[in-house]
């Protein structure tokens, strides 16, 4: 039994392959010239270049944050390739058939449905490969509803007024070290705009893939839901297996106007490094949603299983009266992975509500921390928060930490936080074994039960994937 618990070993990372494709990249290093080059390659308007340069100059004055409960060698920002793109055979693809078949095969291998006719799922996908968006599906159908769903570069060209209005309005370039870096060098990402009163007829999805060994990925996602609009957005990510650490510093901004509803789901499966802790992605991401309008709602759901280091706090600024923020998270770490993740709920409007459900699972020699902030400002009359953070430890060399910050400045607020840490009970496994379930399955069942509250928030396909992913990741680490 004890042996069962310890002999299960890590499943290899099945997305670890490299696509052999001709790519075009700029030399490693960061300077104003590199930024100018990226901007020129993307044929950006002058104001955006100025915006990037301002962010870069601010970034130079900042120091890399050290407060997170993670340990790593800081990346050398001058050894990173800031722009890498698969070399297109033509400047622009007229249809899917013109896309490099090698590239299509990559995404087929990853299980991403980019062939519209071949997919039954009915999910529109924007596919980002290294620094650029490769293709976006179902654009025409979405356009009929007035929905804009395209790559960020395309949006800059075609909807500059929207980008200018909303870019940096939730995460200003000076927000933090990684957001400033991203603002200076971001290369692509997705843009979603749901006009007034429109309920997006299908889930929208972006799939991010890092392929180049030296490159970092700095994408930017911006989602705007106008009055009464609703949208569900999914994000997935993988990277090949390299023994170097690659940096992923993304920024996601969500804006919900009156009565709008945005649901943002992530299954993060970047390469996590091998069982000795070599390689893997540094995932330093700034995600923030602004509930700007009354009765607006933003819901974050994340399943974090990959990355060598995760530093990520999807947050909600509850500005509109009666707005709602939600955060559901499962963070799994194994081997030498380190995660410091959580959320911030900033209550500014009246009768705002927030819910935080966080489940951390730490196996191997990994470390898993929940860090969260609930702040009720003096004017947030009637604010309400409930947080629950549970951790599960598998193996005596893993660690779990909880750092909740509760700051209340209004006497009508109700804030509750609870956290527990435990391990899988031998009696629970024994019970399941008695019923003819092998220990590995038993553990998988227990873990799934532990995460159920979060999984049920995920869209169907993601929930199935997440469940599978979790059991794969834990294979051979539990006994």
């Amino acid at each position, binding site marked *: 039994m004890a042996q069962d618990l310890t002999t299960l070993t890590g499943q290899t990372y099945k997305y670890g392959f490299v696509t052999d494709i001709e790519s075009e990249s700029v030399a490693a290093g960061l300077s104003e010239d590199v930024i100018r080059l990226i901007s020129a390659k993307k044929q950006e308007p002058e104001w955006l270049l100025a915006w990037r340069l301002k962010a870069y100059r601010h970034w130079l004055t900042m120091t890399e944050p050290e407060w997170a409960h993670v340990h790593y060698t800081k990346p050398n920002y001058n050894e990173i390739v800031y722009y890498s793109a698969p070399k297109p055979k033509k400047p622009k693809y007229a249809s899917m058939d013109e896309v490099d078949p090698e590239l299509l095969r990559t995404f087929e291998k990853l299980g991403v449905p980019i062939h519209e006719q071949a997919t039954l799922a009915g999910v529109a996908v924007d596919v980002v490969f290294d620094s650029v968006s490769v293709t976006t599906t179902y654009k025409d159908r979405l356009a009929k509803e007035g929905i804009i769903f395209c790559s960020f570069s395309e949006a800059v060209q075609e909807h500059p007024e929207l980008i200018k209005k909303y870019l940096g309005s939730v995460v200003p370039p000076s927000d933090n070290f990684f957001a400033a870096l991203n603002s200076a060098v971001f290369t692509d990402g997705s843009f979603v705009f749901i006009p007034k009163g429109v309920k997006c007829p299908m889930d929208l999805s972006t799939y991010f893939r890092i392929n180049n060994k030296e490159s970092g990925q700095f994408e930017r996602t911006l989602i705007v839901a106008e009055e009464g609009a609703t949208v569900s957005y999914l994000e997935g990510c993988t990277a090949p297996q390299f023994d170097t650490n690659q940096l992923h510093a993304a920024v996601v901004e969500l804006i919900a106007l009156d009565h709008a509803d945005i649901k943002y789901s992530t299954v993060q499966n970047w390469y996590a490094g091998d069982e000795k802790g070599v390689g893997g992605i540094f995932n330093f991401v700034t995600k923030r949603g602004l509930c700007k309008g009354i009765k607006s709602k933003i819901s974050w759901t994340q399943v974090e299983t990959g990355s060598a280091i995760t530093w990520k706090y999807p947050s909600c600024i509850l500005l509109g009266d009666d707005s709602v923020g939600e955060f559901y998270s499962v963070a799994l770490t194994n081997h030498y992975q380190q995660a410091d993740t959580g959320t911030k709920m900033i209550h500014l409007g009246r009768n705002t509500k927030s819910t935080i459900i966080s489940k951390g699972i730490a196996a191997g020699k990994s470390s898993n921390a929940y860090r969260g902030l609930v702040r009720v400002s003096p004017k947030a009359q009637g604010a309400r928060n409930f947080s629950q953070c549970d951790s599960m430890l598998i193996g005596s060399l893993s660690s779990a930490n909880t750092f909740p910050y509760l700051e209340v400045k209004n*006497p*009508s607020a109700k804030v509750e936080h609870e*956290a527990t*840490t*435990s391990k899988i009970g031998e009696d629970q496994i024994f019970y399941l074994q008695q019923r003819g379930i092998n220990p590995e399955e038993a553990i998988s069942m227990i873990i799934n039960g532990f995460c159920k509250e979060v999984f049920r928030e995920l869209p169907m396909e993601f929930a199935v994937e997440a469940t599978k992913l979790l059991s794969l990741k834990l294979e051979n680490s539990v006994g």
Partner: protein
Amino acid sequence: MVTSLASFFPVALLKAQACSPWRSLQQQDQLAWASMPFPTLRDEDWKYFDLRPLQEAMYTLPSSIQAPLSSQVEPTVLRLYWNQGQLQPPIIIPKGITLRPLAPVVRSSSRLDQDYFFRMNQAFFPEAYELRVQKNFQGKEPIYLENILEGSTQNVALAFSRLHIVVESGAEVQIVERFNGSGRYHFISVVTVEIEKEARMNFERLHFDSSESFHFSYLQAKVGRESYLGVRTVGLGSRLRRDIPDICLDEAASLGLDGLCLLTDEQVGDTHSFIHHAHPRAQSRQLHKCIAQDHSKGIFNGQILVALNAQQTDAQQQSRNLILGDHASIDTKPQLEIYADDVKCAHGATIGQLDPDELFYLQSRGFSESAAKGLLLFAFASDLLERIQVPTLQRVLKQEIINRLHVGSLGELS
């Protein structure tokens, strides 16, 4: 802006009054302390605690006062008085207890060495004593440690006290530490406790400081194998108060760490606790309650660290807060750091108000609104007061709480 330390602390006077047997050790601490930057809101440990009132104060040393006559009538085995931070040597010391100056020895380094005010106490305490409870001593009545500080109306009198308590194996003792004061002063008190194996100590700490005072009180304890430490801290006074219990548990030790903080006006009440489960099978229970009225601010920062080999740790922490004043605020930060897998750890924190249903129920039974509120607040506090192990003290405290809850007449209660 880096604030120069010497500008508002009377460093020269402090150096002059430092403890002579400790001179060389204290000189080292003075150097270390002088190199520490004065904490600001940017420091994680002082994030919620604004120290600017210290910088604005005019510091001086306390003037000596007459030892007050003992007016206390509670039964006791021993009562010790510190006036202005100085011990008044007692006439009789009962069998089984010794009191003597603390021999100057280099302390093993601890995390509190990084604490600005702990280091300051270490560098400048004018005297240090050791209170030793001998092997198998059984105290039926408590030992009282009475601290009296008289500040002035203008300047802030800066005082330090230092006491080391040893509870030898098999002993059982009850200690009451009480702070009373008037006027403006800043008291930095340090009590270090060493409990050997299979011993028990109950420690009641009552802070009745003056409403203009600053009081930073440190309790550093090591609880030995299969020993027990129970601490109840009731904070009622002080303009700025910070309580810093720092407790390390040996194998199968157990700890009860409770705190009640009642805040009014502009008071700031901060509890900064650290519980270190360093060895297996130890148990800790922490309950902290805070009522913040008016413009006051309640802070709780409770860290529990479970070391790698501390298997079968059982740790529970609760922070319960009532925020009642329109301008009151509560900042709470429970913290669990766990490096062992076979553990049961939980923490909870709530911030809220009195339940309107409960208020309505009482009002429907004929209580006035203010009496109903008073009753509920008293009930909230009583939960903690009832854990106090000295009955006479419990009665005094309950009365004190009733007086301080100024939420209308509580006559209906009696």
